């Protein structure tokens, strides 16, 4: 199995175990050697939404703790270096969408990922920035974690607790259902954290580069990209949606050695 799969499975199980342990600890039990932090405490997006109140009021919004700010800083550092690898390698909500997508690929074959026209797909991608703006504004105004009422990530790891808003559960089910026809629908069209991290694609140090001289234009890279990016027409992938999954590279889908690679440096900007 590929490195990425192992990392995704590892983080998925790790976060699930912490979420369960948190519940057990609140009920008076729990596993002592495992973290019992709340899901909010280990979510780096919490750091983004509380940043405004932290700077202006010196206060964290309810349920968010300093650990979220630390994680936000670490993920941002990683993203500036190699792009939003957090989305492609760590985020359990992204992973589960990919896994459900594998079933979709089996059902729809070549039509998978092609049911939404390219132009609509690109336009819908901008929705993420609307969601990001909405979350930041309502959080700053209300001092409350409003996003948790629609957050499918929270629903995924807390649905059994009775603390999850029904709206978040409906969105989670819709996202998993849509994953059967399009890969990572939440990441493509709605994730505010993906939108935030995606900005680093514009200036990240290591980027995905295609060598036009050796490329045979087979478009394998386009068909495997989980975010619907046309790698075959790019020299350097600066698309806001790239999640640094490395699926398009010569190590994975690209059949020609050293043609699509993750390279550092600022030369040959395309």
């Amino acid at each position, binding site marked *: 199995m590929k490195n990425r799969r192992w990392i995704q499975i590892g983080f998925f199980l790790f976060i699930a175990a912490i979420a369960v342990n948190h519940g057990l600890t609140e009920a008076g039990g729990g596993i002592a050697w495992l973290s019992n932090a709340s899901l909010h405490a280990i979510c780096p997006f919490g750091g983004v939404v509380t940043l405004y109140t932290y700077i202006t009021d010196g206060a964290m919004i309810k349920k968010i703790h300093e650990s979220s700010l630390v994680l936000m800083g*670490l993920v941002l550092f990683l993203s500036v270096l190699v792009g939003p690898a957090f989305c492609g390698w760590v985020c359990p909500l992204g992973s589960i969408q990919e896994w459900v997508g594998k079933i979709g690929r089996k059902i729809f074959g070549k039509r998978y990922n092609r049911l939404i026209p390219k132009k609509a797909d690109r336009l819908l991608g901008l929705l993420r920035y609307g969601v990001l703006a909405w979350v930041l504004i309502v959080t700053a105004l209300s001092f409350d974690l409003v996003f948790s009422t629609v957050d499918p990530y929270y629903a995924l790891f807390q649905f059994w607790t009775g603390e999850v808003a029904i709206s978040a559960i409906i969105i989670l089910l819709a996202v998993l259902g849509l994953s059967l026809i399009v890969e990572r629908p939440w990441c493509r069209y709605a994730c505010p954290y993906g939108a935030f991290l995606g900005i680093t694609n514009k200036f990240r140090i290591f980027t995905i580069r295609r060598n036009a001289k050796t490329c045979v234009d087979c478009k394998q890279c386009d068909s495997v990209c989980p975010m619907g990016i046309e790698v075959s027409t790019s020299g350097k992938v600066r698309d806001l949606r790239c999640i640094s999954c490395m699926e398009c*590279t010569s190590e994975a889908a690209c059949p020609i050695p050293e043609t699509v690679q993750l390279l*550092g440096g600022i030369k040959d900007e395309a």
Partner: protein
Amino acid sequence: MKLNQKSIAILVVVILFGGVFVSDALGLWKTESSKVPVKIQSGEFAGEADPADIRGSYTFGDIEKVFPITAETLGEVFWVTENPESFQLKRLEEMYPSEGEFEMGTSSVRYFVARYTGLPYEQTGEEGLFPVAIEFLKREGKISEEEAQTIPVMNPEIILQYEDAPEETVVEEHVEPLVKGNTTVADLFALGLSEEEIISVIGEFESKGELVRDVCNGNEVAFSAAKLTLQELAEK
């Protein structure tokens, strides 16, 4: 320079886990609010934990760690018999319906801790103690008979009501107050109150994250009266 899948895997693990490890070593990794009240800033008791900063999210066990009073004692005087160490103060308000302007909640615990430890505490007007707690303070020599007369007594009947009544009846009859000790100014905005309305009742505030009670205390406004007015405005 070229990076492959393996290097990304290593970077992800090293940056995230290494970063958490380093931040933990530096004391920056906090996954819950610290359950330690702020210290009294000035006067005879400067440097001691301030009972006024005890929060609803604290358990009796958390109080035991900071103040010289056991969770068991707190359980006894607030009639919490099962597992007092892990009992969260905010549950008191759910257990005991408020009686007039008194509320058997976090402020009552703050008040009891202050009387027991001899630390200063400014009353907000909503504190009250059960007779068993007042007797305990007298027995321990923490208050005199005269002082005992000045402490607001909560009617013990509310405990009997609570214990006798079937659970559903209690839930049906208990109307959750909209403004409580842990209500923030932002919560008032969320209840639909305008800035002018809020200022007219509690006075000027510095940030929306402040507790309404703290703003009232700072502006010398009686919290017990303010919360009733705010409740009326919110229900308009």
